[in-house]
């Protein structure tokens, strides 16, 4: 824990805080180096005519996106979204109110592309794109986790995530990218995953994992990689290969496949579910990173694609893959689209294909954190809201003690963990700690009322973020648990297998 960063106090009855200007104006992530920038096809440093380039790019983006076009025009400044962002609630900085964040871009758009802004800038609050505004963009578009909570409450569904993606793309194009995202994307392009874990290291890690499971259970549960003609290709965030608590989730997936008798494999070429291109709004990188999955699936000759526990990766997989790298006509017609691991597990539970001992999780008193990108940007199962039902049903099938947090903080109202959208970096620690406040307050409530000691999440970013911020709020760091860890713990493996 960084000593100079303090968590705000938890309040028993959260109220809407008053605004305090500029509390976060100095929050800025490290800038990408020229090498990071260039590897993604962006200029290495600030280009000379950055104003023109930015304004031109803005015009292109808006004319290529109905979302931007409509969102920039229609906001009536009603204020309904102003208290919906966890970063506003945690920092009180008015620029973290969704509408104010949008206005950072809207005021420039108005200045250059609307009649009112061109001729009456003062009246409608339009401004030139100057250095000050550029700085504001860099600061506040990197204080949006693209969680879409604001879009749930806006009467026109205005999604500030779309705006901050566009803002970041424009910043990249003029040469001021963010180090964290761009460096990671470079690693994916060159090595195949966010961590920069090369193939031999991956193979090694997975062998070690198989040994651990054997020591633990006495059963040979496989964690295969690059196995041709396996049924399932599992695409999972690379944090699952080594970080706690992620890795216990990976063990859980392995046990599920093992007991269901499904042959599966990881891919060393596409050893990463994450696609940070979405965070920086880069369509070219989005497609390129996604294409690795299709290539790996075809190369390995698999019949199904399954995605591990990762929030934004599931959004990309669920909502974008068919568009970007489809059609998936080479898959088994019974499983014609990539599935979430939770859909697979839930299905197996429904069919009675897993033997589960709930008592194995009796020491856990569980609550579930809906990850934003799963909750508000994708779906599981065949009905709207399946993304809320399925993980909870899995938990209830594997454990006896489950307690939901308060309704205005779960399902589509869920509060972001505070670290999503490409902000999971140490240089934004103050933001991450403060942004976690609403979630921590809801958690404190179930800890107090129901003795909850386990916080389950199905997103690699959420897990890492919680492991980091829980201690700031005086919770145990190891409260955070992978969903498939409790599945793995409940599964009764057949020792005669």
């Amino acid at each position, binding site marked *: 824990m960084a000593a100079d960063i303090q968590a705000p106090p938890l309040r028993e009855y959260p109220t*809407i805080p008053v605004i305090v200007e500029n509390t976060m104006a100095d929050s800025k992530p490290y800038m990408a180096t020229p090498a990071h920038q260039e590897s993604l096809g962006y200029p290495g440093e600030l280009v000379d005519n950055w104003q023109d380039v930015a304004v031109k790019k803005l015009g292109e983006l808006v004319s290529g*996106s109905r979302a931007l076009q*409509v969102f920039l025009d229609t906001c009536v400044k*009603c204020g309904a979204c102003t208290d919906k962002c966890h970063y506003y609630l945690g920092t009180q900085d*008015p620029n973290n109110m969704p509408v104010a964040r949008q206005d950072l871009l809207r005021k420039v758009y108005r200045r250059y592309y609307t009649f009112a802004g061109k001729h009456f800038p003062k009246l409608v609050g339009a401004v030139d794109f100057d250095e000050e505004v550029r700085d504001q963009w860099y600061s506040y578009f990197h204080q949006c986790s693209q969680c*879409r909570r604001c879009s749930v409450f806006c009467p026109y569904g*205005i999604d500030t995530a779309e705006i901050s993606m566009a803002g970041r793309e424009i910043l990249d194009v003029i040469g001021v990218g963010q180090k964290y995202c761009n460096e990671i994307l470079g690693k994916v392009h060159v090595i195949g995953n966010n961590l920069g874990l090369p193939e031999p290291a991956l193979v090694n890690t997975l062998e070690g994992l198989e040994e651990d499971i054997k020591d633990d259970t006495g059963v040979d549960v496989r964690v295969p990689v690059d196995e041709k003609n396996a049924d399932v290709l599992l695409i999972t965030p690379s944090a699952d290969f080594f970080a706690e608590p992620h890795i216990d989730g990976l063990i859980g997936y392995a046990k599920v496949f093992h007991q269901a008798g499904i042959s599966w494999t990881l891919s060393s070429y596409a050893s990463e579910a994450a696609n940070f291109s979405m965070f920086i709004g880069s369509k070219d990188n989005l497609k390129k990173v996604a294409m690795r999955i299709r290539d790996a699936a075809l190369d390995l000759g698999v019949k199904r694609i399954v995605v591990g526990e990762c929030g934004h990766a599931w959004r990309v997989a669920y909502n974008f893959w068919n568009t970007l790298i489809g059609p998936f006509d080479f898959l088994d017609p019974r499983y014609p689209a990539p599935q979430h691991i939770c859909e697979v597990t839930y299905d197996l539970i429904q069919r009675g294909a897993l033997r589960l001992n709930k008592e194995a999780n009796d020491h856990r008193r569980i609550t579930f954190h809906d990850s934003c990108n799963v909750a508000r940007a994708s779906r599981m199962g065949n009905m709207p809201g399946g993304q809320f039902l399925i993980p909870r049903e899995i938990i209830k099938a594997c454990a006896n003690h489950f307690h939901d947090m308060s309704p205005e903080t779960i399902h589509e109202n869920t509060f972001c963990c505070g670290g999503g959208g490409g902000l999971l970096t140490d240089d934004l620690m103050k933001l991450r700690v403060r942004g976690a406040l609403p979630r921590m307050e809801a958690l404190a409530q179930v800890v107090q009322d129901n003795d909850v000691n386990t916080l389950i999440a199905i997103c690699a970013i959420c897990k890492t973020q919680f492991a980091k911020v829980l201690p700031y709020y005086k919770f145990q760091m190891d409260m955070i648990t992978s969903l498939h860890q409790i599945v793995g713990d409940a599964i009764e493996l057949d020792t005669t297998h």
Partner: protein
Amino acid sequence: MTLTVIFAILFYLATALFSIGIIRKIVIYSKTPQPLKIPTTPAPTTKAGVVWRLTKEVTVFQSLFKANKWIWVFGWLFHVGLLLVLLRHLRYFTEPVWFWVNWLQPFGKYAGFAMVAGLLGLWARRFLVDRIRYISSPSDHLMLLLLIAIGSSGLVMTFVSHTDIVALKSFVMGMLYFDLQMLPSTVALLIHLALVIVLMVIFPISKLLHAPGVFFSPTRNQVDDVREHRHVSGWSAKP
């Protein structure tokens, strides 16, 4: 007579700007591609479901209701009031007046109060709530002021100093059939009409575009069926 001619010309101009402006925007909205699926979930999985979702947004402001009860109360009062008032105004534009417009008259008469009350509530929030004060620019205040002024000048005519409605109607019908008739020149009416002209002109270049815009918002109008139906558009349609 000069006044009549000036107002007639201004009305023709305003109508042209209003219609062309709105149609242009609607064309832009419908032609601009939406390359990826981005519905805010849980979202309907069928077209009929989307129609239902949008119907609830437009009639009862569903998302706003979830978000903030005060804004909802004032906003809804204002819009429903406005709708009734506008429907009641159809009697100036139709001959014979449609039966259901007649049927609405008694309600419409008081709807003006609801409309203005809602507007005043919304305006008060722009001063009283620090967050909304922060996000308001002069145009946001002026927009409310304009609508309040239109509403109050209308209410003055309805309840305080009446206008010659018959003469007004022949002026309006005269414009519709290009056969100019005298405009009754009461102050309240002239103010009312002048402000309406301003409203029509700024409609297509202001946030009032939310009225057509709400139907085009991809987070609300997209069907959540991307696994079954491959979606491509704009850059995503290019190989």
